């Protein structure tokens, strides 16, 4: 299917990663953060500080979904387990070995994978650590193995600001991607859909056993939720699983090579990075070594992920599980005299209200800082959310139904079809500076408990 999206907005920023891959800089520590997974009920940690682990050794599991093991991305020593309120584990930090060792899993040839049973596939996926690469909708949770998804969706493009170019990241990885798809075939009776960007995505063009789609248009064209909505929308009572090419790659490696190899190529980008480029590293990598001597200024924000859906981290913070990049942008902690009215072409804006002139040169890459540009206000419905959400959904009414805790209304208005990332642009353009993504998650949590 060819999809064309017209609603949306590309935030064009300075500091896109150049297509150069750094292999010789590695992080010292790697972290696993249970907080990366919404909806975990009671994570039970299986290791202690001082234990040595291999890549693929279980670190914790969730009592609500016991079969899924969350495992170490690298081998080494567990140096720290951070806990929050009620001893909820926040972060498990591993000091990596110089040469990694791996838990061994069964390896298969490409042709053998086709003959595996669903049970055999499930048990290897669940115990090895690759399972959390799958995301279950509604609600964006770690999937329950007993659920059968009606389809599996993969977006083979990332349209977020400064996002990595998947054609570069996955070139030469076709056999792993294909193996990943062959494995996923066992999990659903429905189709596997993969969507590439129109005119790009050559790496994904020859994959077999998938429904291929092409999408064009501004962000959020790359969001899998938008693709699902237009290809095969989620109804109440249905499950759809999604993953990324990173997930396919790791699943492919697990079955072809017999090990949990969490290696991934991630981008380091943003206006404050001297040399924005790609790094070959592992899941949960610490940022520190990548930015050492590679920053233009001090007053910066480090972000695990992109500027729309990522999270603020410290300089020695680490990459979130499902993140594929680090962003470094200026911190916006400054006062600006009459900043609310002076005309400017420098500031990024979707709006064209008086003095906001960035729309005159939409292709220009700009520097953006973290300033809120205003204060939180009451909802004023200006019709702008609808212009950046290419779905047949009324975002303001959905948000209001969540604030009113009206479960039936949330359901009727389509909460099952969206997760945070789909509403991130709404949060960006919001005049009232509300925390739309957080509100959406509250709604999903309320429904889950109901």
């Amino acid at each position, binding site marked *: 299917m060819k999809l064309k999206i017209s609603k949306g907005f590309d935030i064009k920023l300075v500091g896109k990663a150049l297509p150069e891959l750094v292999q010789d800089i590695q992080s010292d520590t790697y972290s696993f953060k249970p907080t990366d997974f919404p909806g975990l009920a009671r994570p039970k940690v299986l290791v202690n500080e001082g234990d040595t682990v291999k890549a693929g050794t279980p670190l914790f599991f969730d009592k609500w979904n016991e079969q899924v093991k969350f495992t170490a991305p690298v081998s080494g020593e567990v140096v720290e387990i951070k806990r929050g309120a009620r001893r909820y584990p926040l972060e498990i930090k591993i000091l990596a070995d110089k040469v990694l060792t791996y838990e061994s899993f069964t390896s298969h040839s490409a042709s053998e994978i086709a003959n595996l049973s669903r049970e055999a596939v499930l048990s290897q996926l669940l115990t090895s650590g690759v399972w959390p690469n799958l995301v279950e909708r509604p609600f964006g949770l770690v999937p329950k193995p007993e659920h059968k998804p009606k389809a599996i969706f993969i977006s083979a493009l990332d349209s977020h600001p400064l996002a990595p170019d998947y054609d570069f990241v996955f070139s030469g990885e076709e056999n792993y991607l294909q193996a990943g798809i062959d494995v996923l075939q066992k999990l659903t009776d429905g189709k596997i859909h993969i969507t590439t960007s129109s005119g790009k995505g050559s790496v994904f063009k020859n994959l077999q056993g998938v429904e291929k789609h092409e999408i064009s248009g501004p962000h959020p064209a790359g969001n899998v939720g938008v693709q699902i909505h237009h290809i095969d929308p989620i109804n109440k009572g249905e499950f759809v699983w999604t993953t990324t090419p990173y997930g396919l790659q790791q699943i492919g490696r697990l079955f072809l090579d017999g090990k949990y190899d969490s290696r991934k190529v991630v981008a380091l980008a943003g206006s404050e990075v001297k040399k924005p480029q790609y790094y070959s590293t592992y899941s949960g990598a610490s940022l520190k070594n990548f930015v050492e001597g590679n920053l233009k200024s001090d007053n910066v924000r480090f972000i695990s992920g992109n500027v729309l859906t990522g999270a603020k981290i410290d300089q020695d913070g680490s990459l979130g599980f499902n993140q594929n990049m680090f962003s470094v942008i200026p911190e916006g*902690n400054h006062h600006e*005299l009459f900043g609310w*009215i002076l005309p400017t072409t420098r500031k990024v804006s979707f*709006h064209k*209200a008086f003095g906001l002139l960035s729309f005159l040169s939409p292709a220009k890459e700009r520097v953006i800082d973290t300033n*809120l540009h205003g204060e939180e206000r009451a*909802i004023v419905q200006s019709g702008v959310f609808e212009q950046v959400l290419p779905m047949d959904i009324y975002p303001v*009414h959905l948000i209001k139904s969540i604030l009113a805790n009206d479960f039936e209304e949330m359901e009727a208005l389509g909460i099952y079809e969206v997760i945070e990332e789909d509403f991130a642009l709404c949060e960006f353009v919001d*005049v009232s*500076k509300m925390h739309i993504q957080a509100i959406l998650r509250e709604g999903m949590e309320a429904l889950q408990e109901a």
Partner: protein
Amino acid sequence: MKFLRNTLDKVKPLFEKGGKYEKLYPAYDAFETFLFVPNHTTSAKGVQVRDAIDLKRLMMTVILAMVPCLLFGMWNVGHQHFIATGNVDATLMEKILIGAWVVLPIVIVSYGVGLGIEFFFAVRKGHSVEEGYLVTGMLIPLIMPPTIPLWQVAVATAFAVIVAKEVFGGTGMNILNVAMTARAFLYFAYPGDMAGSSDVWVYTDGKEMVDSYTGATALGLAASDVSGNVVMALDAASLSFMDLFIGIVPGSIGETSALMVLIGAFILIVTGVGSWRIILSAFVGAWVVGLMFNGLAGNSDNYFMTLPAHYHLIMGGIAFGIVFMATDPVSAAQTETGKWIYGFLIGALTVLIRVFNPAYPEGIMLAVLLMNVFAPLIDYFVIDANKRRRLKRLKLNAA
């Protein structure tokens, strides 16, 4: 700039928790944020960057769009004053000065009373002062007759801000357009000062009007017992189409010039701040109903029905009301489909009220307020259709 910042930082502790003027923090905050965009940054989770827009800028865009109406209105008040008093040689400057003398006090009273109440509620409820009143405060003077007593402006403003807005929870929560509520209040409480006799629309400064000057508005004239050709009657009263379009006629301060309103509409549409759907559909609605009445007029003795439809779009306050009041995002329909219906009905109702209700020569005020009330209902049906689509998909799947 450094000096300003330092001064602000120095007095800030007085207004913060535990400070001497702790209670007045919202007032301090409003002043500080007027000068400086605060140094607040995005939170650790959620979007890490924000659009450069904020509510202040949005509101200022609307105010800017009203400036042509305000300036022209000031000139026109002076112009009508000199015509009425028989001084045809008055200069541009004299007209503007008289106009400013009349209009600025009304603007000051409107802002003074309105913002005062907003500050009071902000301090009481401990939230920051919201910017919504910046627009309302300018709208109110523009829809008042130039002769309105200042105390009435004050009372109407207070009534509108408290009863139409704060009672519902403040900015963003009101059901009725606040400025239109202020006008409606005066219209029903002090009808003699808002309509009726022709000296309402012209500031004479107590001087006698010259005999040749009628001071009648086009609407008043058309609704009165004109027999025969309404257009000829209008022309006779020097209210030709061109006069009405440019706005050199008596009327409320900011509403007379369709041309200036169009400039405002252009600003609102280009900046994306006002909904072009509402503006377009409202004008279409008025025009279509005007045409319909032309067709139905036949032998009816209501000669107003025979008025060419395009006259309806430029007479009275309809253009101003459509562009600046119907588009108020808070009280309008909020769905895109709903905006088409909402706008169309405002236009249609305005003409309907004009032509068939001699008690209310101008229909836009009641049309906007009425549709404000019905806007949630329109949205309800539009959203219900969305829910049905989703439900239908589910049933198809189950079958």
